[in-house]
Structure formats: C-alpha cells, structure tokens
C-alpha cells in the first residue's frame, strides 16, 4: 500500500549538482597532524574544557564536558597532545574566534577504552545521558543535542518517528552515500530512537532522486527485520527541512511555537541515527562525520573526516581548481561562506563547496520589490516574505515579528525566485539578529533594574536596622546619662523617617563596613616579611589613606544626600 503523502506550500527546484560526488565510495580522510576542535559545536550550553595544556589525550577522550542538559560533550578525534586551549577561528560566517582545543596528533590513533552498552537493559534516562556524553547532536546541520529530543511529550503519545534522509540541498550527498553504504547502522540507530520514544510508526523519508539510497535502505530495513517504512518523497527543495519532511510524511505542521513531540512526532537525520548506533553499540563518541567535498574541485567525493580537521587539509583531498575564489559550508541555499581555511570541520559540517564565479555568479543588481508575490508562493512556511522585507528594511521589527518573522527557516526559496534579486534571507537574518540583540539588552536591563531595586531595599533595611541599633544604644546610654537623652530621643522616635537624621546616621554607618578592614590588614601582613609584601603593604596603606580622604571630602561636600552618600 503506497504511503499517503502530503504537500507543503511552495518550494523550488534548483539544479541539484549531486551526481559528481556519488561516483566514488566514501573515503577515509588521512589523519592530519594538527586538529582544532572547537568546544561549542552544539546548540545550547557551551561545553567546558576538561583537559589541560600539554595533556596527552586518547582518541575518543572527553575534552569538553556538557554544560547543562541541552549541551553535548566534545571528544578528541585522535590520540595526541593538547597544544593549546585558546580562541581559534570559528567555522561561522562571522569570522570570530571560539574557544578550541588544539591537538597535535601522535599518529598512533590510540583509542580510549570503549564501553559498548546494551541499551535495552538500561533506564531511558541513562541512555540519554550516555548519548549526551557521546557528544551526539543532529548531524543534518542544526546540531541540536539529540538526547534532548529523545523524550516523548507527557501529554501527547508519540505517533511517528521520522528519519530524515531527504537531503534536499544541491551538491550535498553525504546522507545519500551514508544510506547506500551503511544502511544497517541507520536502521539500528533508528531502532534505538524508536525504543526511547516508542512511536507507533517509523518513517524513513528519502527524496525520489536517490533511488540507490531508497533501495539500500529498504534492503537494510528488511535485513534487520524491522517494520520501518522507507518512503520516497517528491524532490522539491526544502523537502529535507525537518518541518517540511514531517508535514509531507504525516500531514502534521509544526509551528515555530511548538515542539514536534507535542504533536506526537519527532525527526532525526540519518547520520544522527547511525552515530547514535555507533555510540551505544561500540562506545564510539561522535568524533568523525561524513562530509561532501563538491563544487569546483577535480575529485568531488564524500569523506569520513575527523572533526577538527581544518578546511585547508580537507579541500586538498579534492584538488580545487584554479578559479576557486571561496568556500561554502553547507549547501548553496542555506550554507555560508567560510571565513578562512584555518576554520575546522565541525559537527555541523555536512558539505564543503568550492565556489567559483562561474559556478555561483554574483547576483544581478538588486531592484525594488514589485510585490509580485513570487516569494510568498515559494515560501514553504506560507509567510509573506515581501512584507517581512519591507518591515526588516525599515527596522520595523515589531511588525516583522507580528508577521511571523521567527517562523522563517531561512531556506532561501524566496530569494531564489525573487525577480528583483533582493537578498531577502539576509534581511531576515539581520532582523532576527537585531530582535535577539534587543531582547538580550532588554533582559539585561530588566535584571539590572531588579538588582538595583533589591540593593536599594537592602540598603534601606540595613540603614533602618543600623539606626535602630544606634537608637537603642543611645537610649541605653541615655538611661545611664540623663543629659544625653534630650538629643537621642528624636532619633529613636523616627528611625529613617525624615531624610536629614537618617543621612546623618548613615554617614556614620557607611564608614563602618570598611573600618574593620584597616586594622584587620595589619596582623595579616606582619606574618610575611618579603619585599613584595612590604611594598604591597605600603601601597595599601597609601590607598586607604587616599580613600579615607576622598570619603571625608565627599561626606563634607554633600552631607544631606541620603541616596548617594553610602556609595561614595
């Protein structure tokens, strides 16, 4: 019985350029001498480095531990010595540095002790933890930690698990080759996800321009005795977007405001499935992945590369042609231009394209928008890109959000069809960045305000307490000395009620916290007699003297400024 397919709106059919890189089988890239492993390769928390400079690390050893739940560990891709833990050029469009561990390979490629597990006998929670510590993230390019996607919603029962082998972007063939050559690993990995999520059905979606992969996967499913459905989906970019594939296979549309598990469906990339299988069955963490080398190179091919290999080392495998002027990571629809050849291959790297002016001619000049609506009809999320464009360009970000800017997946269909050649996606990225920036600033301002208010409250309270204590002391003294009672009484009667007396009290109080520091310094310093200590002592004494002078001057200048005097 053929599976009923659904249709998503729009999409485009760019030339696929996929045939060149699938002629040769997946090659194993030689181990480079130097690897640069960025610590933050996932969405979510930044992993913390857990090795030190000069340490010898083994292949598969954790070098960065997962920070928080949504994060994933990072491992050494080979054995060697940690030569640096420092910011290095990030594989990111910005060209900014990111904290990385530089490893000098020793050529032995010596594994750390691997611990295969029988996940079926383990609690699901520990399986998820294991996957997090194996550094498993979505290998389709989104690099969201996979373990965090492996919990079913409490409210909605899981219905479908979608395994994404659509691979809709031009040039990229790494999933195609993986499915052809390692179908069994994918099927077993999908089995792990199935056991953790317990969906009713497992659907493997592959674009129908990959008949070999479809056949290989059908065979692998049959060989494993599983009941997964391998479904050919029409070739139309972006059919491989998780939301689009889910909608094509199940008819469920997951909006940006919802999690797919809330709708009883979850989606993983084929490479993620195979890596999960390797992590559990062989105890091999995610230290390599398959990367397509395509475009303007003599030998386009797929390579299994150690993560951390630099782009420079990688492209040498394919011999770029002379007119290559830049390199893209990802496909030509959603990828970005690499900031430099020193950037490493990371978990998100699915494809490196050598680009030449002939392959990707510079876009024709930008014309004004004529509101033709082509973009709206091409948008798989049924947005109105031309409206978003007007708002983004006018920096009218509130309106852009109202028109669902954040439902944009930046697939590039709108810019692809735009007759005016407007870089629509760039406008949307810019607008999103600005909105996020403003949200950040706003949050920071909110918390600063809260802390300021809290602090003022605390000051008031301390002042009141102090005043009360002083008043009590004064009252006690007054009881002893009747002469003083006349001056003390008003202070006791109005603790911090009128500004003037309160200020007078606090001026005295302000000095209190610091004054113990002065005598406290002396006994501490007497123990040591080194030159440095003596110099330091002298400096401190001078500093304290200066501070006192300043404080006195300030107090003299504004004795009645209740709000500011404690800070001076």
């Amino acid at each position, binding site marked *: 019985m053929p599976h009923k397919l659904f249709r998503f709106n729009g999409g485009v059919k760019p030339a696929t350029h996929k045939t060149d890189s699938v002629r040769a089988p997946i090659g194993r890239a030689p181990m480079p001498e130097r690897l640069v492993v960025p610590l933050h390769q996932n969405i979510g928390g930044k992993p913390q480095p857990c090795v030190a400079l000069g340490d010898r690390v083994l292949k598969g050893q954790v070098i960065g531990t997962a920070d928080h739940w949504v994060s994933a560990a990072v491992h050494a891709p080979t054995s060697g010595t940690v030569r640096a833990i420092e910011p290095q050029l990030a594989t990111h469009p910005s060209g900014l540095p990111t904290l990385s561990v530089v490893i000098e390979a020793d050529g032995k490629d010596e594994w750390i002790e691997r611990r295969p597990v029988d996940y079926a006998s383990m609690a699901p929670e520990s399986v998820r933890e294991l996957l997090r510590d194996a550094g498993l993230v979505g290998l389709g390019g989104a690099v969201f930690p996979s373990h965090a996607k492996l919990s079913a919603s409490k409210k909605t029962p899981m219905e479908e698990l979608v395994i994404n082998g659509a691979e809709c972007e031009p040039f990229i063939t790494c999933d195609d080759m993986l499915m052809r050559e390692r179908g069994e690993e994918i099927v077993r990995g999908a089995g792990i996800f199935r056991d953790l999520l317990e969906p009713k059905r497992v659907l493997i979606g592959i674009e129908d321009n990959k008949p070999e992969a479809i056949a290989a996967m059908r065979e692998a499913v049959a060989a494993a005795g599983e009941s997964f459905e391998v479904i050919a989906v029409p070739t139309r970019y972006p059919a491989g977007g998780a*939301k689009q594939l889910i909608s094509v296979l199940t008819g469920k*549309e997951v909006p940006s405001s*919802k999690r797919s598990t809330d709708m009883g469906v979850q989606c993983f990339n084929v490479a993620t499935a195979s890596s999960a299988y390797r992590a559990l069955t062989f105890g091999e963490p995610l230290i390599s992945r398959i990367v397509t080398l395509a475009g303007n190179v003599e030998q386009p091919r797929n390579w299994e590369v150690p993560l951390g290999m630099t782009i420079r080392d990688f492209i040498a495998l394919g011999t770029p042609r002379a007119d290559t002027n830049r390199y893209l990571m990802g496909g030509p629809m959603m990828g970005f231009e690499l900031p430099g050849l020193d950037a490493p291959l990371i978990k998100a790297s699915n494809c490196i394209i050598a680009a030449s002016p002939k392959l990707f001619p510079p876009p024709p000049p930008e014309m004004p928008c004529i509101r033709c609506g082509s973009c709206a009809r091409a948008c798989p999320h049924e947005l109105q890109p031309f409206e978003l464009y007007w708002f983004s360009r006018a920096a009218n970000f509130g309106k852009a959000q109202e028109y669902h800017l954040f439902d944009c997946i930046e697939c590039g269909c709108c810019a692809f069809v735009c007759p005016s050649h407007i870089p629509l996606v760039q406008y949307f990225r810019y607008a999103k960045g600005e909105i996020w920036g403003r949200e950040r600033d706003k949050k920071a301002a909110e918390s600063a305000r809260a802390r300021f208010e809290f602090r003022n409250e605390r000051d008031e309270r301390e002042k009141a307490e102090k005043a009360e204590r002083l008043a009590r002391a004064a009252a006690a003294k007054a009881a002893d000395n009747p002469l003083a009672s006349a001056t003390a009484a008003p202070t006791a009667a109005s603790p911090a009620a009128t500004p003037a007396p309160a200020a007078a009290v606090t001026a005295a109080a302000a000095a209190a916290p610091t004054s113990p520091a002065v005598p406290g310094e002396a006994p501490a310093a007497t123990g040591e007699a080194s030159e440095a200590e003596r110099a330091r002592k002298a400096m401190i004494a001078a500093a304290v003297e200066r501070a006192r002078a300043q404080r006195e001057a300030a107090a003299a200048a504004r004795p009645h400024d209740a709000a500011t005097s404690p800070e001076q």
Partner: protein
Amino acid sequence: MSRYLSTSPYQLGNASVRRVMLLVLAGLLPGIAAYVWVFSPIILVQIAIASAFSLLGEALMLKVRGKPLSLFLGDGSALVTAWLIALALPPLAPWWLVAVAALFAIVIAKQLYGGLGQNPFNPAMIAFAACIVSFPALMSMWPSVTLKLSFIDQVQVVFGLMPHVDAMNGATPLDSLKTSLKLNEGGVNVPSLLATQEVFGYFAGRGWEWVTAGYLLGGLWLWWRDIIRWQAPLAFLAGLVAISGAFWLWQPAQYASPLFHLFSGGSLLCAFFIVTDPVSGATTPRGQLIFGFSAGILAYLIRVFGGYPDGVAFAVLLLNICAPLIDRYTQPRIFGLKGTR
C-alpha cells in the same frame, strides 16, 4: 566587510523583473493583433508614441533622481504602462494626448512616488483617469464603426495633419447603449437595441468582441506561464458577472447581459492586465479575491450608472486605495498555524 555581501542562497533562479515585464507585453500581443485586424494598424502607431514618451519620461526622471538608467530603463515596466495606455485610449486620439497620458503616468503616477514598485496607483489607470477628466470630448471620440479611412489618413488624423471631423466619431458600444437607454427612457429595450444598432456585434461591441477575446487569450497564457495569479482576474470577472447578471435577470429589457459586459470596454484588459498589477493591487490570495470582486462590481456601477463611458479605471483606482488595508486584514494563516483563530 566583503563577506557580508555574500549570503545564501548562492544559487539563484532565473527570474527577473525584465522577464516578467516582457512576458506581460507578450501577453498583450493577441489582443493587439485582433485590434489591428478589426480596426486598424493605427494602434501600433499609438503604442509606439506611448512607448517613446514613457521611456523618455522614465529616463528623464531616473536622471533627475540619480538612479542607474540602464538598469531601470531596461526593466520593461515603462513599456507595460505605455502599451496599456495606448490600448485604453481611443485609437484616433491625437498624438499629444497619448504623449501627455504616457508622461503623466510615468512622471507623476510612477516616478514621483518613488519609481518601480513604489506607486500606490496603477500608472496607466491614473493617466487614463486624468485624461478623461481633462479631455472628456477627445476621450470619447472613438472612430465610428462605419468609418472607412485609409491608414495614411488615420496617421494624419493622429498627428493633426488632417482635421478630426465629427463624422469620424462614434461611441463605444457601452456608451451608445447607455445613451440610447437614457434618450428613450422606457421606450426601447436592450435586446432590440443590440439587434438593430450597427455598433453592436454578435453579443457585445462589433469588433470589440475579437479584441477582448485576444486579451482573454493573452491573459490565460500569462496565467499558464505563472506570471499572474487566477484570483484577481477571476474575482473581477465574477464580480462583473454577478452584478450585471443580477440586474439583467431583474430587468432584461433595461440592462445588458453579463456576456455583453464581459466583452465590452476594458473588462478583459482590466481583468488580466490591470487588476493583476502586483505593485498597486492586493497581494494576498484572499485579498486578491476581494480586490478583484469589488473592482468588478464598482466597474459595473460606474459604467452603467456613472457619467463615464467605462468604469474600470476608476474602479481600479478606488480599490488601489484600499489595497494596503485589504492586505492587512487578509494575511494568510501560516504553516502550522492554520487551525488557530
């Protein structure tokens, strides 16, 4: 900094404004061919005049505004406006009227608003409206059906070398129907008028039936080529048919049939080439339905009850005003949010 120039997508489709505009011009060809065949090749002269002055106006304004000439002159949008003006004006209109219309459309209605993509109103319709308000007599001088004038003489009339005499004039089928009904209030009925007066053909204006059929053909081709959407044209025609049908069913003797209205005046030209103008029209699918339908109804009301021979220009202009509002309230539900609200 150069990196910011380059963002995905790097691979682009082959669409361009120029291609869109050239296809629209191609869509007008069947109608023009019919025009030439039924009336006279003089329309080609008018198209040439309008095109020349449109391009002139465009070039001048681009120069003044400091915009790249080659880029914007080559986009073909001025030509589309020019051709629509030539087709909307009477074929024997003096050359200067066509020139004024073309310049008005380009300079005032398009460039002063910011040029391509910025004009809130359809420039061709603005020009038509301006002319019909300023030169009502000239604008209603359509060649009489019986006029037998050689092409050379027609050219001379257009360029003012030969006087434009009343004998040459007739009225458009819409106009003559309206005047006849008004003159003999209650005395005549539409079917007999259509049967007796020589300005009418099989079911609409004589000859016009073929020209408008040519527009229909070109429009359908544009729809097939995915240059225009079906919503606005269909809704426009539906609006026109709905209201004309209602009046016709109510009093067949006083009101012409929907078929007559479909194939008379600018109905089909408007349906496929004017309400489909993306810049000044509604852009959402539902918005285009509303836009087209309302324009159809308004066009009928103005054409039948108003003072002008045809109503499409004013109908479209009135709806142009409403387009942003229509868009605002017809935003489509997006992916994943269809069931909500």
